[in-house]
């Protein structure tokens, strides 16, 4: 086990390094005038522009720049934002925004686990009857229709109906409710559909038929055998989902004007804010890779029959 953990950590490090290096080099392909804010570009003459670019360090060859990035990283310094929050340290920007995404994300994740797993159990329990049909309709709407559409209508109609504020206010808890629910809707659908699928698969297995035919009450079979085994493939995704709540949701945060992390990466990439992009890509890929790793460990913990050291082909829920 110890050797396996070490090997996996080594592999994770390689993956993260490749991701960061790839993004780093791709960013260096962008045009140079992207590093200016519009006013700066207009106000500077040619020499000032060159001096500015040299000062940023983007005129050196990319691998020198990468070396500088790594030595900064070793000192815990990820640089300063260029265009999105000019001259603010990247870590401060992230530190300021992350809590919003984190709290909304965790609340929504808790909500979607509770409601989604509940709905999944109901759908499996009453398969081909009303709860299953209603659940399927819900899942289909949420998963098939682009989320922008239903998120927009929820904001428009529910706020009008209940007289709630349209956007997020930090000091008015009532304005926190809709973003959290909106954030949870797709999670609920995800949990419900996969738990139902895994439970139905499990119910058809021989050991369940055997348990029923030897006279075990149906409730105990469902609770003790079917549900427990159906949860195993889902458990794998918990750590990653928890860790990546920090990334926030672009759509929901921008619809409700929440100052979270959601739109940060996209605006950083569009405005060529290299230090900010690099820091975010590093953060997200570390969390993503560590999340998968922890998920595998958790799965072994929950289901002792699974042996990790042999192969890596498992889990189909996506």
């Amino acid at each position, binding site marked *: 086990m110890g050797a396996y953990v070490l090997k996996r950590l080594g592999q994770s490090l390689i993956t993260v390094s490749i991701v960061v290096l790839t993004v780093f080099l791709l960013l260096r392909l962008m045009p140079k005038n992207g590093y200016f804010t519009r006013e700066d570009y207009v106000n500077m003459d040619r020499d000032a522009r060159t001096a500015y670019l040299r000062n940023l360090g983007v005129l050196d060859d990319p691998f020198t720049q990468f070396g500088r990035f790594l030595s900064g990283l070793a000192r815990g310094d990820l640089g300063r934002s260029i265009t999105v929050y000019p001259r603010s340290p990247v870590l401060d920007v992230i530190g300021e925004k992350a809590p919003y995404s984190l709290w909304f994300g965790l609340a929504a994740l808790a909500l979607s686990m509770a409601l989604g797993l509940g709905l999944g159990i109901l759908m499996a329990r009453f398969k081909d009857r009303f709860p299953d049909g209603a659940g399927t309709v819900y899942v289909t709407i949420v998963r098939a229709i682009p989320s922008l559409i239903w998120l927009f209508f929820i904001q428009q109609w529910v706020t009008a109906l209940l007289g709630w504020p349209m956007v997020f206010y930090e000091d008015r808890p009532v304005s926190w409710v809709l973003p959290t629910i909106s954030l949870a809707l797709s999670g609920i659908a995800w949990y419900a559909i996969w738990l139902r699928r895994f439970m139905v698969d499990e119910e058809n297995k021989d050991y369940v038929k055997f348990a029923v035919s030897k006279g075990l009450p149906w409730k105990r079979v469902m609770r003790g055998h079917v549900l427990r085994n159906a949860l195993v493939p889902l458990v794998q995704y918990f750590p990653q989902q928890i860790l990546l709540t920090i990334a926030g949701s672009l759509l929901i945060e921008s619809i409700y004007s929440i100052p979270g992390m959601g739109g940060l990466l996209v605006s950083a990439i569009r405005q060529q804010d290299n230090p900010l992009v690099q820091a975010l890509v590093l953060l997200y890929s570390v969390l993503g890779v560590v999340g998968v790793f922890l998920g595998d460990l958790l799965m072994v913990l929950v289901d002792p029959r699974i042996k990790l050291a042999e192969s890596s*082909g498992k889990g189909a829920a996506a």
Partner: protein
Amino acid sequence: MIRTIPEVPAELFRPAAFDEAAAERTGYARYSYWRSTFRTFLKSPVSIFLLALIVVLTTASFVYPLFAHMDLGAVNLDTETWNLSPNRDHVFGTDGLGRDIWALTWYGTRTSLLLGFVIALLDVGIGMIAGALWGYVRKLDRIMTELYNVLNNIPQTVFLVLLAYIMRPGFWTIVTALCSTGWIGIARFVRNKVITIRDAEYNVASRCLGTPLRRMITKNVLPYLVSILIMEAALTIPYSIGSEVFLGFIGLGLPIDTISLGNLVNQGKNNFMLYPYQLTWPTVILAAITVSFYIVGNRFSDASDPRNHV
């Protein structure tokens, strides 16, 4: 206690003639995988209805622009025709440039469906080949897994912005950006399936019985993969159409003068406070298309599972 069999009259019996055709008939079931799949799929009226809806919408969106002869670039300076509410001439009203929403929606549907079809074709085509290699060639497994991890962790926006810079924003930029990460998901799915099928008991049995490789591939492996690939293609289409809406929202979608469902929805959303009907019709068509493809894809995947066959 021994009982003797009573005397049986010989005239009740006559010898059976040997019939070669009848002897051959035994032990052969008239089972066709595809016939059963389609029979199971078409048993539900919902599936038939949605399939018909897809066909009708696709045909209409490709035929309508042939007859409409609408000049999409025309600038209409007559403010009287701008932002009209639904009336007899314009059943769903007009947009901020005086263009008929009904007509725009058909043009937009054509663009979005074309986008969906192209992406589905490329994703599934590349994903199938890469996935089959990934599953069969054991040496490739580590490299492909690493590639999968890397691609999964690189934000799609990086590709999009860079491609928009290299290629100019447009149809093929979005296709390239979405395919650059989309194929590997399908490849992984195919790979997992290939591995399970390759080592499944019925294939081991088939191999032991000396079934030739060609027959193994065409009869034992391919039917399962083809159904999966059809399902993946059906599900990629609503996903691509939805992605286009999302990309339009963050300002990385198709250029604003290209008429697509994503652009129509985003414009309608921005004018929703003043002219709510501008959002209605594009949204209805968009939802009809994505939901139909989603349900048809899932139903087909259920029907293609032999365990659900009668």
